[in-house]
């Protein structure tokens, strides 16, 4: 996530954050991240995959987020910055950080569900490292 942090640093250096407002606006679409997939996950989802598979799943999934969401998620949830720090770093308002964080979390959750959902027959265990055998996502 070097990229997200570099984005953050670049924003910090920029004198006039002219794009702040428009960036805030372009994520106001309400239903984009509302949960559609509500199936529960296996008890220890990450253990269904080996280390390399898991890393690939996680990085592929997070790359699919809009950059503005990804940066907020990484700073807040991975790096552990506070909401205020993240807001300052990205020149966003606190409510904007919160709104992006919620959307980022929900979108990641939805996407990870493809891999981590509890399956009918748990015993098979391995699904080729790719996706849970097609119980209709998307």
């Amino acid at each position: 996530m070097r990229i997200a942090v570099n984005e953050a640093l670049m924003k910090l250096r920029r004198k006039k954050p002219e794009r702040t407002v428009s960036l805030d606006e372009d994520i106001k679409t309400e239903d984009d991240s509302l949960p559609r997939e509500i199936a529960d996950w296996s008890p220890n989802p990450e253990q269904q995959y080996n280390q390399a598979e898991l890393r690939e799943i996680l990085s592929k999934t997070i790359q699919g987020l809009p950059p503005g969401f990804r940066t907020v998620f990484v700073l807040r949830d991975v790096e552990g910055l506070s909401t205020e720090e993240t807001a300052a770093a990205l020149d966003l308002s606190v409510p904007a950080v919160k709104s992006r964080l919620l959307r980022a979390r929900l979108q990641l959750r939805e996407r990870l569900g493809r891999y981590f959902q509890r399956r009918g027959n748990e015993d098979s265990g391995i699904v080729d490292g790719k996706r849970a055998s097609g119980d209709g996502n998307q």
Partner: protein
Amino acid sequence: MKCSEFLNELTNYLDGVIDESTKIELENHLSWCHNCYVVCDTTKKTIEIYRDSQLYELPDDLRTRLRSAIMKKCQQHKKHGPKSV
């Protein structure tokens, strides 16, 4: 409380920054709404998985730079208030 209201508070709830009466309402909702319970639980897992993944270990110097840049920025924020909104 409706599911959409629950979702709006989900981030505050997971971060533990929420007043007691809202928390009681949320947990009351969780006690009967299975969908929100699952969403809440799997969102929590999502955060934990990424946090534990060490996918994004920052090099220390970058982390230090980021922190100090943010601290500086925070002080400006206190003086002038956030720029947006």
